[in-house]
């Protein structure tokens, strides 16, 4: 079978209609109670746990034939995970795909929020490994559920306290816990804390799927999301103190790339679409050398 042909043997977007219905019910409940983890009957997907089985199921339940899908992995459109999932849906759902954030109607992401601001009508689907923000402090599921029920979130600050006591600052740099609408403490999935402010007041719908842990949670558009902190150690989104070496962007999240064994390194935007878009507009970074005609 050719890669770009639609697999006729499968139902639209792989999952059967009853399963999609069940997932949609969980999504609707999640949207009705922002930040609350809704249990759902996660299915076996044709990929290993940890590769985005939760996100893929949420995406499958949300896709319609008119959608245009974008998939990113750590901000990049061209990494294995992103390419595989994009190909999976173009085969099983036959939907159009894109790499451009503003053109996509549904974006599945692993560990980043695109730099380009999202707009009304878009859905952002996160892949979540461990949905329970309290898990590493309180291993008992019965107890963490009770803590959510009774809003006993002091423990979350114990984690931040430990950070400051040990490192002099809040060293948690990803998976940074947030408070949703003053009610539920939520794990934003392992996005860098640089992206945390983008969670709040976003015009797009944000859905979180954890396949192994069988939980779905959601942020409806324009939800207030606050990163937890101390009065004397306020939340600070952090990034590498550089400009992008390809597009020169000063305010985008950067990946550090080791270029040789002499200590050479470069910093590039982790969001490849954002970086390419800026270069098209003529922005140049320190190391940008346009490919000459005929070069491979």
């Amino acid at each position, binding site marked *: 079978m050719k890669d770009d042909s639609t697999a006729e043997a499968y139902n639209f977007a792989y999952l059967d209609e009853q399963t999609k219905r069940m997932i949609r019910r969980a999504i609707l409940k999640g949207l009705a109670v922002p930040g609350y983890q809704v249990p759902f009957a996660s299915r076996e997907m044709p990929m290993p746990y940890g590769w985005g089985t939760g996100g893929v199921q949420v995406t499958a339940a949300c896709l319609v034939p008119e959608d245009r899908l974008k998939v990113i992995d750590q901000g990049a459109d061209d990494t294995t995970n992103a390419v595989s999932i994009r190909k999976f849906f173009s085969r099983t759902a036959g939907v159009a795909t894109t790499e451009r954030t503003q053109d996509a109607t549904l974006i599945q992401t692993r560990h980043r929020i695109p730099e380009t601001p999202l707009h009304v009508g878009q859905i952002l689907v996160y892949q979540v490994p461990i949905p329970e923000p309290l898990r590493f402090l309180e291993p008992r599921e019965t107890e963490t559920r009770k803590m959510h029920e009774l*809003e*006993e979130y*002091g*423990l979350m600050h114990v984690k931040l*306290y430990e950070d400051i*006591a040990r490192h002099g600052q809040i060293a948690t740099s990803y998976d940074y816990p947030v408070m949703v609408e003053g009610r539920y403490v939520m794990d934003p999935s392992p996005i860098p804390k640089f992206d945390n402010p983008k969670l709040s007041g976003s015009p797009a719908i944000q859905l979180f799927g954890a396949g192994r842990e069988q939980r779905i949670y959601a942020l409806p558009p324009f939800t207030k999301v606050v990163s937890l*902190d*101390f*009065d*004397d150690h306020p939340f600070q989104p952090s990034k590498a103190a550089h400009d992008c070496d390809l597009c020169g962007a000063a305010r985008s999240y950067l990946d550090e790339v080791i270029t040789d064994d002499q200590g050479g390194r470069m910093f590039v935007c982790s969001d490849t679409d954002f970086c390419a878009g800026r270069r098209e507009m003529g922005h140049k970074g320190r190391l940008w050398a346009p490919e000459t005609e005929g070069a491979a």
Partner: protein
Amino acid sequence: MSLVEKIGTTDTPLLKVAGLSKHYGARIGCADVNFDLYPGEVLGIVGESGSGKSTLLSCLAGHQRPDTGQIAYDGRDILAMSESERRRLGRTDWAYVHQNPRDGLRMGVSAGGNVGERLMAVGARHYGDIRGKATDWLGRVEITTDRIDDRPSSFSGGMQQRLQIARNLVTGPRLVFMDEPTGGLDVSVQARLLDLLRGLVRDLGLSVVIVTHDLAVVRLLAHRLMVMQGGRVIEQGLTDQVLDDPQHAYSQLLVSSVLQV
């Protein structure tokens, strides 16, 4: 204000227990327990293993629900409270010191974090203040401040128990439940811990319900004493009175069983 004055000014009991019973199937956990605990008063509960002391304590602290009876704290019916209210009370006005400090501490969290947890649970959000209070309380329980960032797993048994006490008292509770706080400690460490507890109870005017099988502990700490056997209270009265002139046959046995060195 001295302790005597404190007790003198309040004639309403802090904790009022009436007709409390708890059964495990057909077996009796504890049956028909009645007592009043006044502010600043320390009540000791002694008895052999299986006499229902721990069942009684866990019913009082809200860890288990009694079958019948009433518990009123500060005029409020504990059993009619919602769980969130009861747990809130457990974090603010009450404290529970476990026999094994591992049950009461978070072993993966530093000493300072352990003490600070209750403060953060009731809304403290200023790191400097929390740290200051934790330092102060570690000092009060004789843990040197350079250990503040060490985990309790690196502490000795006695230090862990003192840390547990600091963690419990930091929010200024009025009522403390203690389940064999000196169990498993050697005698010299026990003596220091008892000395510390006695000082804290006196300075802070705490009301304490202390469960133990060690008569020396209640002799030092408790104002009043309840002797339990087979789930029932068989004798109660002032500590010295019960220990020096036990009336019930079992109390006499208990007192005479203490080894004189």
